[in-house]
């Protein structure tokens, strides 16, 4: 059996890091939980849970207008966490960081606000054949409103993007390229920096869906040079219901608000209003302060482990999992791109993915099964769905061994 080359995250062992996550010591159907559904949502460390609890126990108030001490503290905490996100992404200014409910809302914001203002009939939005529905449907809605069309960067047989084909078929009507950084099905890490260079040279903007990348390695928006980046807190140890839209300041300045209400206004008259400055123009209503505090605590927690260590350990997990899964007879892997994250989709013979997942659940192993919100990709692969194991830095080789053994059991059970 292979031995891990990396056994520590910073100064800590994986076993030690697991202690930070209260949920990881529970059992499921009498077996220890092996949580391998991290691409859907991550588990939460005590540091994040504590930060949220302390906020509600000691500091809860509405933000931005209260003149009392609690209100000022809550506002300061909320804005400090915006600053944390800005530094985390290496954005130029806090004005470029908009709190949203998640990746989906962030993409919808851009499609509605930027799209409605700047796209004209006949313009093209370029996506890829590996997009999650959340980076497809908002653009479909936009195209229906504006008479625009969608085009798709095709995939290579390994599940990468065929950039040569994209370059060949590029048209000057392409105004926006919206693509995922890491595929939630194939695990492919896309070279978004090259795509941004390509798009910018041809006058198109780039939106990166970072839902599966930001939790796993450092994403630097200045280095990538993307125009927009969207991601969710809940896949990176923060609570559900908080996410981020990063947008280049000069673009956000030109974009109209997309939701009206409190906080996003400057002056309101009976017939009209003027808009607040960035980023508040895009944050109507009482924001998710708990979420922002949880996200800040999650960023601190991940920094404490060191991103380079997280990345190294997850690469080890992916390598070992791929090796062990390939030992399972009749197992088909989807996505073999050279640069990939720790997301592995597979099928086992002709066994339906839901049956695989149900068997694994019996063994205490949580995986996802189905189309993974990527129905067009499933249609391309000509399969109804896959089972998917997705890893985080708190997963272990022993959990991968259990997955391997349980898959042998499933093959026998359904034979």
């Amino acid at each position, binding site marked *: 059996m292979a031995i891990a080359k990396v056994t520590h995250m910073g100064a800590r062992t994986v076993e030690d890091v697991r202690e930070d996550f209260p949920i990881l010591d529970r059992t499921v159907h009498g077996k220890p939980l092996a949580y391998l559904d991290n691409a859907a949502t991550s588990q939460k460390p005590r540091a994040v849970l504590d930060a949220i609890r302390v906020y509600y126990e000691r500091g809860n108030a509405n933000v931005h207008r209260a003149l009392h001490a609690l209100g000022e503290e809550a506002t300061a905490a909320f804005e400090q966490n915006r600053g944390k996100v800005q530094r985390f992404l290496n954005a130029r200014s806090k004005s470029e960081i908009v709190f949203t409910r998640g990746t989906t809302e962030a993409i919808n914001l851009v499609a509605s606000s930027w799209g409605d203002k700047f796209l004209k009939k006949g313009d093209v939005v370029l996506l890829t054949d590996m997009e999650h529905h959340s980076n497809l449907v908002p653009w479909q809605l936009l195209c229906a409103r504006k008479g625009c069309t969608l085009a798709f960067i095709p995939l290579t047989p390994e599940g990468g993007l065929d950039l040569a084909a994209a370059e060949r078929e590029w048209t000057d009507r392409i105004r926006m390229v919206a693509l995922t950084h890491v595929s939630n099905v194939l695990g492919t890490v896309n070279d978004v920096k090259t795509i941004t260079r390509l798009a910018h040279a041809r006058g198109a903007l780039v939106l990166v869906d970072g839902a599966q990348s930001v939790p796993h390695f450092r994403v630097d928006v200045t280095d990538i040079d993307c125009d927009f980046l969207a991601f969710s807190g809940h896949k990176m140890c923060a609570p559900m219901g908080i996410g981020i839209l990063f947008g280049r300041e000069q673009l956000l300045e030109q974009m109209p608000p997309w939701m009206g209400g409190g906080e996003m206004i400057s002056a309101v008259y009976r017939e009209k209003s003027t808009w607040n400055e960035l980023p508040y123009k895009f944050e109507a209503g009482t924001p998710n302060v708990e979420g922002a505090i949880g996200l800040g605590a999650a960023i601190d927690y991940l920094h404490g482990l060191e991103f380079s260590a997280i990345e190294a350990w997850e690469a080890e997990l992916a390598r070992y999992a791929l090796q062990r899964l390939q030992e399972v007879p009749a197992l088909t892997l989807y996505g073999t791109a050279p640069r990939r994250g720790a997301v592995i989709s597979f099928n086992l013979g002709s066994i*339906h*993915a*839901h049956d695989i997942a*149900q*068997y694994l659940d*019996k063994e205490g192993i949580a995986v996802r*099964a*189905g*189309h993974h919100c990527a129905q067009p990709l499933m249609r391309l692969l000509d399969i109804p*769905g896959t089972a998917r194991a997705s890893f985080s830095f708190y997963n272990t080789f022993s959990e991968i061994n259990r997955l391997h053994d349980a898959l042998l059991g499933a093959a026998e059970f359904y034979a």
Partner: protein
Amino acid sequence: MNTFDDLYQEIVLDHYRSPRNKARLDNVPESMVHENPSCGDAIKLEVTLDDSGKVTGIRFDGRGCAISTASASLMTEKLRGLTVEEARSVAHRFIRSLRGDEPLEELDNMGDLVAFKGVAQFPVRVKCATLAWHALLLSLPEVKGTSAA
């Protein structure tokens, strides 16, 4: 409680491994395919009736998980010889009891279909067990004088 074994009972596994009345139904148009988009399952049916309106046979074609395949297979056996009206009534009872609209114990009086009782503990899988039955309700002809089931 071993809920997994409740779900995959021996009779379910038997009908999954050797589905009865499964055939290629290329003659049935794609527009008649009944799908569960959440899991990619798809099924189409061919129902044959005699002159008196009794079901003489049901065949199915499609792809699905063990639960949906076994349910389709058992359905083809259960409904043979029934009138359209009776078949519709069985389908409604089966779907309603799995969805919790009627007591689950209804299944105790439905022969082999009792094997799907365990499915009720898995709300996500109820759709799998009822897929073929929904397809059936769409495939059965309307019978004159039948009151709405």
